[in-house]
């Protein structure tokens, strides 16, 4: 058995030559967290007794979804040939919404484990992150996980990995996070194969922030990788993007709980606490330096988070609006990418227009709001950013269909994405059909192995934000994997479709679609609403319109009987109470002109896309 390090190297006094910084690139369910736990155990950082499953995933939602959305770093001692090394494992988010965070995590490492399920092979997002790691000149250690599974095909997928990174299939490690097989060998390989960090110990300090987490007791905990110089407690530091200065109240490493140290030197990875309360003051990608002796240049690569998908979030109970506001304010402390502004909808009342990095980000935020703050929310269909030039030459940026200009439009540009789909070859046709129906232009197709294909499309972002991934999964029996990245913008023939109830526009249902899809959106919504809105005392036309042109129409027939025919002495109290109840019910109705629409109808109309998703899963 390979030895655990008898004496772990001391932080702040660790020579870079015995440091190894690495991350794990893996698809959601390929066993990254289990393997990470196994490494913590093998290095003695966690005793078996302390070990909880997936120790690194702290949040419930992450655990339930089996994904990691926030990276953290653990320092592990490991001895090879009598030398004690310090290994820093940096956990990376696995989802495309967090590509920027992934890129910063990669930038903090010299190497990456390419972890692939031996029963499934590589997935599109993993491939995308692998390319990102290779562009960053990271040393890649290919690892097949779950070799204990009966369905594992290690030979097949070792070959696939070997081809991708240009190594011999023999070099692909085979491990089982579940049984622990191969884990010690893997730790040895990390020490042997990965280069030591490079940096100037005497230079002005520079450390890159690769994660920033709000903790309600300690304030913001900032995770950094020191590149040059040394950071020490009580030091005055500066954030190079903003120039903001803070005092280092605490500095330390995680192993696996936070342990204060005398500092962090070149190549070391750890955390900082400055007492700030908002992750925006300590942004991922920023460079930390000494306030008195600042570095002349930052480490580069910093970007402001860019929300790409927007949705209106409204409390179902209007009186919850202040709770929603406070809840968003709290989430924002820990989520630098979350942006929002108040929005008022005639149909849904007071809420917020919220910008997200992507759909998963949206779902996570919504779920946290509902779970941690006990809110019941209704969200409008997500949309993207449109750059519009009116006929008179004025240009505007629209993130909400209701802001869509009424007048003549000269051009509209929408964001595009480059999509990669990896799928067994038998599903090529199904994927091509789907992508074409979503206005995709095929860029190319490559066989990764005999029966696995990578398809590349350029598509409007708007076409993948709603249910594309679910459709993709259902049409490929769950085999397809998807990755996408932004790929500029494109002029498109887009229109806004309004839904009118008795001539009154219902803002919550306005949508921007391609002209070819406008009719289908209009008829779908009109039919859905006809079924959901109760009959009124008068006929209610439901229309879908582009500007003043009606493209679809349905009618809700007038109700003809709404009276309790019998009302004698003994019925009066009961009938009055019924009436009072109806009056209360009426108050909860949303009025669209004279039409009473139950809140449930809005919710159902907006969420029936999700219902059909569920059905398709079954």
């Amino acid at each position: 058995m390979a030895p655990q390090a008898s004496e772990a190297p001391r932080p702040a006094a660790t020579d870079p030559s015995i440091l190894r910084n690495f991350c794990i690139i893996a698809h959601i369910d390929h066993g990254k967290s289990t393997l990470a736990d196994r490494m913590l155990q093998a290095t003695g950082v966690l005793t078996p007794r302390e070990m909880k499953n997936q120790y690194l995933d702290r949040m419930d939602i992450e655990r339930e979804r089996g994904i990691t959305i926030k990276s953290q770093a653990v320092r592990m001692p490991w001895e090879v040939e009598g030398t004690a090394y310090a290994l820093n494992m940096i956990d990376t988010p696995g989802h495309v919404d967090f590509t920027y965070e992934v890129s910063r995590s990669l930038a903090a490492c010299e190497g990456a484990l390419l972890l692939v399920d031996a029963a499934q092979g590589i997935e599109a997002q993993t491939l995308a992150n692998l390319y990102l790691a290779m562009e960053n000149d990271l040393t890649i250690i290919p690892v097949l996980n779950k070799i204990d599974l009966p369905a594992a095909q290690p030979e097949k997928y070792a070959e696939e990995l070997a081809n991708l990174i240009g190594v011999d299939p023999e070099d692909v490690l085979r491990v089982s996070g579940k049984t622990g097989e191969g884990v010690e060998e893997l730790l040895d390989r990390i020490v042997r194969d990965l280069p030591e960090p490079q940096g100037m110990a005497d230079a002005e300090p520079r450390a890159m922030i690769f994660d920033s987490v709000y903790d309600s007791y300690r304030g913001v905990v900032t995770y950094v990788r020191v590149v040059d110089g040394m950071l020490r407690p009580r030091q005055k530091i500066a954030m190079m993007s903003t120039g903001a200065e803070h005092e280092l109240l605490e500095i330390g490493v995680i192993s696996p709980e936070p342990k204060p140290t005398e500092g962090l030197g070149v190549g070391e990875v750890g955390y900082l606490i400055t007492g700030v309360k908002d992750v925006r003051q300590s942004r991922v990608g920023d460079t930390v330096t000494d306030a008195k002796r600042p570095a002349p240049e930052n480490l580069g690569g910093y970007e402001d988070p860019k929300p790409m998908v927007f949705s209106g979030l409204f409390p179902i109970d209007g009186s919850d609006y202040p709770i929603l506001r406070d809840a968003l304010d709290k989430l924002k402390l820990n989520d630098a990418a979350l942006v929002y502004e108040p929005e008022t909808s005639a149909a849904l009342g007071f809420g917020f227009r919220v910008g997200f990095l992507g759909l998963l980000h949206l779902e996570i935020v919504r779920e946290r709001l509902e779970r941690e703050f006990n809110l019941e929310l209704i969200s409008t269909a997500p949309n993207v950013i449109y750059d519009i030039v009116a006929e008179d030459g004025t240009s505007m940026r629209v993130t909400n269909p209701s802001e869509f200009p009424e007048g003549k439009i000269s051009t509209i540009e929408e964001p595009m994405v480059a999509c990669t789909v990896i799928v067994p070859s038998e599903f090529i046709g199904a994927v091509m059909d789907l992508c074409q129906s979503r206005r995709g232009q095929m860029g190319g197709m490559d066989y990764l192995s005999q029966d696995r294909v990578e398809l590349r499309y350029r598509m409007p972002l708007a076409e993948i934000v709603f249910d594309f991934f679910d459709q993709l999964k259902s049409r490929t029996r769950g085999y397809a994997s998807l990755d996408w990245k932004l790929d500029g913008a494109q002029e498109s023939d887009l229109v806004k479709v309004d839904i009118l109830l008795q001539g009154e526009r219902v803002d919550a249902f306005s949508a921007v679609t391609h002209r070819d899809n406008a009719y289908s959106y209009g008829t779908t919504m009109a039919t859905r609403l006809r079924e959901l809105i109760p009959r009124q005392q008068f006929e209610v036309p439901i229309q879908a319109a582009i500007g003043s042109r009606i493209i679809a129409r349905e009618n809700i027939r007038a109700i003809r009987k709404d009276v309790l025919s019998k009302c004698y002495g003994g019925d009066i109290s009961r009938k009055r109470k019924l009436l009072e109840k109806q009056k209360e019910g009426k108050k909860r109705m949303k009025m669209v002109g004279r039409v009473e629409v139950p809140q449930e109808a809005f919710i159902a109309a907006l969420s029936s896309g999700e219902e059909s998703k569920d059905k398709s899963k079954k």
Partner: protein
Amino acid sequence: MSPAQPTGDPAPADGLLPAGAGAEAAARTLSLYVHVPYCTVRCGYCDFNTYAAEEFSDGVGRLTYADDAVRELRFAAEVMERSGGLGRPLHTVFFGGGTPTRLPAEDLARILRTGVELFGIEDGAEVTTEANPDSVTREDLETLRDAGFTRVSFGMQSAVPRVLEVLDRTHTPANVPKVVDWAKELGLQTSVDLICGAPGETLEEWETSVRAAIGYAPDHISAYSLIVEPGTKLAAQIARGEHVPVDDDTQADMYQLADELFAGAGYHWYEISNWSTGPATRSRHNLAYWRNQDWWGIGPGAHSHVGGVRWWNLKHPLPYANRLREGVSPAAAREHLEAETRYTEEIMLGARIADGLPVERLRPAGREATGWLLGQGLIEAGELERGLVRLTLRGRLLGDAVVRELLAD
């Protein structure tokens, strides 16, 4: 008297009414309702407080009913007196059920006599009993007439045997004209009840029943849409798929057809479900309900309303009788109507009758709503000009919606 009683405040054992109940009592009439909770069979649609049993225990049953009713009458007279001299001569009396004619006619006569002795009665007061066309005899009707009854309401429901069967009614349609004729010969006013929209009933079958009722030439016809109440046998049958309920649109067609046929035969609507040959043949007792007058309800489960207090008796005949025998009020619970509640009831009830609801009684938001209702064709333009809210035919079918608009805040 529905089994689903409302919830209310506890009722005091002495039954005494609060001081405010006497206010303006002289301006209100006092009626008497007598609930007889006995039937030979329990009809499948019926959710009234009624029992097919003959006798419970402790000597409480159909044949002791009159004794207990008389006890409650005495109790009532005393409460009214002690609550500030609220007793007034009776404006109307109504025996309902159940099947009042399941009691010996002499029992009904005795109850009426006691009421008159205790409260007095207005000249020309209306005294009605409901009667089952199958079981009532000419002799019964004569006894009742002699005791002071002036009006009989026959439960006809339908002229179509298949529909009667769905409703669990046992009577033979042919009995109805016979009993109506007897009543007329005895100088009694007559009314027949129809039920519209029994499961599976067609518009044609309904028309048959309406024409039959008109053909018997009563003074008054009631026609109710069947309401399938939860907990009834019929509700269970529908839930099991044995019956298909008639949808609201068909019910509306049925109502319109009936109204048209009634009008053509000289019957004018004066309340959403009631038509009569003229003002003199309207049910004055029921009008007293819709006009928020005072009444005392005698019998198990009966509801009363005196001076802004509503209460309702214990439903089951046994505890009801035992309370009275101990000299304690048989009320289960009561509610004191606040100004807001009274307003709601006034509008809710007043809008149902053809006399109309004075616009001046409405609050500003309600007055404002009349414009919209007029535009929708739910209330009559001419009446509105005269300051009255009166439902149109369409408005009657949407009566509850109209009331909600009139009560808008």
